[in-house]
Every structure is written in C-alpha cells, then in structure tokens.
C-alpha cells in the first residue's frame, strides 16, 4: 500500500483548479488573506508563508483530492461536482465562474423551436453523467458519445444530433450556428470541504469559510 503524503498538521491544504477558474479563485483567497500566486507555471504545489499548502489540479480532479482528505478543502465548479459525484460538503457558492450546462443543436434542425427529436438521439458531450440523468428523467432513449474537446464540432459533421455542453457567453455556439435547445442547470464556483476534515479542522475551515463569504461577490 503506497503511503500518501501527509497533510501538514497546522495549515490547511487547499485544492485549486487550474484553468478558467484559477484567477478568480486565487483573487478570492488573496482577499481572504492567503498568499496565493498569480501564476502557478508548472508547479504542482506551493506552501505559503502562513503555512497553507496549495495543490494545483485539473478542475475535474479537485473533488477526488478533497474526498480522500489529501486536501482539506478546495474550489471547484458546480459542473465538476455533478460529473464526479464525490462525497464532499458544499459550503459556499463563490459566485464567480458562471456558466450554464445546456442542450444545444444546429439551428437548421429547429429543435429549439419544438421540432420533434429523432426517435433515437445521439448526444455528444464531455458531461456524460449529467447528460445521462437529464435524458433519463425525460424518458428519452439516447446514445451518449463521450468526447473530450470541441464538442461543438460533432453536430456539424453528423456525429451527434445534440450536444450537452457548458456555455459561458454563448459565442462559441453562435460561431458555429448552434442554438440552445434547453438549459439543464447553472454552475458557479463552490467552496467544498472534506466531510470529516470539516470536523477535525473545524476552527480553521470555518474561519476560511467566513472570510471567503464576507467578500462581496
């Protein structure tokens, strides 16, 4: 059994999402008094002067690090929480990183105007869990095609009838003449903690929660 690195006893270990959420997450933590670097470069972790350890992770990996307690807490988009279904406690909506998870299709298919779907739908997405439960709730049989990038291409070349994807401004959809058929949910960044660490490091985590939420969004 390999031994995971032990979290330091005093300071908190915070799982940080690299990518789109990073700047806002870093700014919010700085406002809460934690010395978070602007740019992480190729670093995996940093320990700040006040003893806080930051882990720089792919956003989709944040919930796993927090569930296992390798990080005490973390910042991650709600969309990632839907997809990963990890046992983490969601303590605060940090407000930034707004986007919507939507069903989209080609404008010419007119699904957004109520045109009937084909009896057997092919749906391309990076969000297979969310897509599966969305269509299951509507009793729509679908074939899910899990993709890892540029999902908006798939309806244009006939790979899929619909896509399920995140939309921030909608410009990507417009560029490819795609339209929103239905909105599944809205997502923003969340402050999550490990359920047991919440108790074990209660004072430190509550103090951080209070400082994170005291800042106007």
């Amino acid at each position, binding site marked *: 059994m390999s031994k995971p690195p*032990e979290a330091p*006893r005093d300071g908190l270990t915070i799982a940080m999402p690299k990518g789109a959420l990073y700047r806002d997450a870093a700014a919010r933590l700085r406002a809460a008094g934690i010395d978070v670097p602007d740019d992480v470069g190729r670093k995996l972790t940093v320990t700040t002067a006040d003893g806080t350890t930051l882990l720089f992770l792919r956003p989709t990996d944040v919930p796993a690090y927090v569930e*296992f307690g390798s990080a005490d807490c973390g910042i991650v988009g709600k969309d990632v929480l839907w997809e990963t279904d990890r046992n983490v406690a*969601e*303590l605060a909506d940090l407000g930034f990183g707004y986007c919507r998870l939507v069903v989209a299709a080609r404008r010419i298919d007119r699904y957004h105007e109520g045109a009937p779907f084909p009896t057997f739908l092919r749906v391309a997405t990076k969000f297979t869990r969310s897509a599966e439960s969305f269509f299951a709730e509507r009793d729509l049989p679908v074939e899910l095609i899990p993709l890892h990038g540029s999902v908006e291409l798939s309806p244009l070349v006939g790979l899929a009838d619909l896509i399920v994807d995140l939309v921030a401004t909608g410009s990507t959809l417009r560029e490819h003449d795609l339209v929103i058929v239905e909105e599944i949910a809205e997502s923003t960044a969340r402050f999550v903690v490990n359920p047991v660490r919440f108790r*074990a490091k*209660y004072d430190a985590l509550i103090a951080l929660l209070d400082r994170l939420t005291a800042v106007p969004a």
Partner: protein
Amino acid sequence: MRLPAGVRDWLPHELARKREIEQQMRAVFGRWAYEELQTPIVERFDVLERGLGEEASELLFQFNDRRSTALALRPEMTTPVARLVSTRMREAPLPLRLAYIAPVFRYYEQPQEGRMRELTQAGVELIGAAGIDADAETLFMAIEGLDEIGLRDARFDINDARVVDGILDGVGLDGDAARDAKELIKVRNLVGLRKFDRPALVEFAQRRGRHDAIERARGICRTPESREALDELDAMLERADALGYRERVTVDFALLRDLEYYTGFLFEGYVEEIGFSLCGGGRYDSLLPKFGFDVPAVGWTAGVERLLIALERRGKHVRRRRHRIDVLVAGSDVVAARERAAGNVVRYAGSDLGDEALLEEARAYGIPRVVIALDGTVRELRVGRRMDELPVPRTPSNWDAR
C-alpha cells in the same frame, strides 16, 4: 488471474495486523459483556430491503438462486442481526448485548481505498434497551475501542435525529421540503440549504459546539421529542466529561448517517489524518419493529480496514510480530508430536539436511531449538541468538519492506 474490482487478498503478515486489531476490538466487546455471533454472508434480498429501505438496497450485490429467489450479500450487520433476533431470539431475556466481526459487501461503482466492495465490520448491537444509558454505553465503548487499538486522540461527534427533525419543524419545513432539506443536511450542502431561505437552518448545519450549541438549538426546537433529545445530548456531554473525554466529544447537528433506520442518538468517530469516519452508530428503534419485534435498539460499528489505514498512515503499525516457532524437528513424527503436545509450535525440517543446514534454517526463522531424531537417537541443538549478524531473511513478514 485477476481479482474482481474492489476486493483484496491478505498476505500472512497483512492478515496478522488485521487480526491483531480484531482481537483488540473483541477484547473490548468482551469487557463490556457482549457476546459474539455470526450470520450468513448471503441473505434473502427482501430481508435486507426491509431493513435498509429502497435507497440503500442500491448498494447490494444481488443475484438469484436457481429457483429465482432474489438473494444479496449483506452490506452491513445490523439488519441480519435484527432478523436473527426477531426470529430466533425473541424469548431471550432483554436487553441483548451482541457483537460481530464480519465481512460485509457493497457494490460501489468506483471501489477505492476506504470504500472497498468487501470490508470487515467490528460492531455491537444493544437490543431491548431504550434511553440515554444505552446510548452512552455504545458511545463510550466505541471510544474505548479506538483507544484500545492506539487511536487515543480519535474524536467523536454526536447528534440526535430527533433534534434535526425539531430544527426542521422549528424553521417551518415539513413534508417534501423537510425531506429534501434533510438530504442536504446529511451531506452538509450549505449552498443547497440556503435556497430554503431559512438562515437558522444553515447556521445549525454549519456550527458545531458543546453546551452552547445545545442552548442555541433550544431556542428553535419546540417538539417534545427534540427537547428531550437536547436534554439527553446535554447529559451525554456531562457523562463524557466525567470520563475525561471533554476534548473528544462535540455536538454536530448536521451529523446524519447514511442508513435510513436511525431514529435517535447518533455518533461518528474520526481522526484528523483520514478523510473518512472510522466508526459510527446510533439508535434505530424502528428497525426491529419492521421485523415484527417491537423493541428498541442501539449499536455501533467500526471499519477494520479503515482502522488499519489510520494506524499505518501515522506510522503506528500494529506490532509486526514474526510468527513464533519454538522448535525445528527433523526425522521423527513422534518427537514432533510430543513437542506439539507440550504446547510448542513445531516446524518440520527435511530429514536429509545436515546439522549446518538445520541451524541455518532455524536462525532464518528465529527458532531457538533444533531436535534431530535420526538413526534411533535424539539430539538437540541450541541455536545461538546471532540474528544481528545474519542477513535479513526473506520471510513473509518483511516482503513488503524490500
């Protein structure tokens, strides 16, 4: 030659550590006058569903026998014990104090460390006893159990399901809304709870404490059940203090355990390094009535593998005792039998080995005596304790140290 996902083998030296913990837990159960029992690994599906509810039955390993009777592997021991007590032990004088150390099975989609599909539970059920004395007995036994295996800094959070209901009632939620809120409380989803627009709800799900937290809850709980539960939590803290557990027991009103059957007092034990709880339990007065036996009950259980992870992670390995062998015997079944009859652990050696080879084997396994019975004579060789001069032998107990 692969294993199915989520299950593992135990090599002798690994099993030795696990057994050590199990023995320590068994000793604690015994000191509290609990008797160990055993039930089948396989139960009828309808029995488990009756105890666990529909939601939990999603976790079951299910299959049919050849007559299409739906069966399942037990995912925990409380339901099988409830079935057993309500069928076979109805006439036994109450309260019953029962213990188990047993494998259970859960069909996790993504098995992983701390969430294996096969795990070992060590726990107890106190059946036929209502009230705080029985609740306190389970909590304090659990604290002693973790102390016994060396986790003396383990902490315990306590709650009562009746207080959660009282808080929901106090903020004016009932029906579906109360049920939804309870699900959010269980996972401490404060974001979801804020949508109910009841600030007190979020406050209670967030703030842990001791007498101060109980006092705040008194301001909002109006139902007689919840007020009684608050008095009992107060008393529980005082009893814990008297045992020297002041720093180790805290009230957390968001503590709700996964299984549906809990009706009153609840607790979970944990240590700082591990992101999972190590043990937990509570009162489940409505479970035995589901099996037609109207008696209250309370119990707790610990995950043996999680206890092992906790000990290993803090470098506090359970004593790695080498398997003790007293004597190496060559050449005679009779001599070996005599040694065994005298209570010694005997290892057989090949009768074609010379003295030097026998001594080498004895040294490699730390065996103090060699008895050679050849050609009608019995000779005994003393093995010098010169282990430090010898290369470390490759025995099972240090395979993982390579």
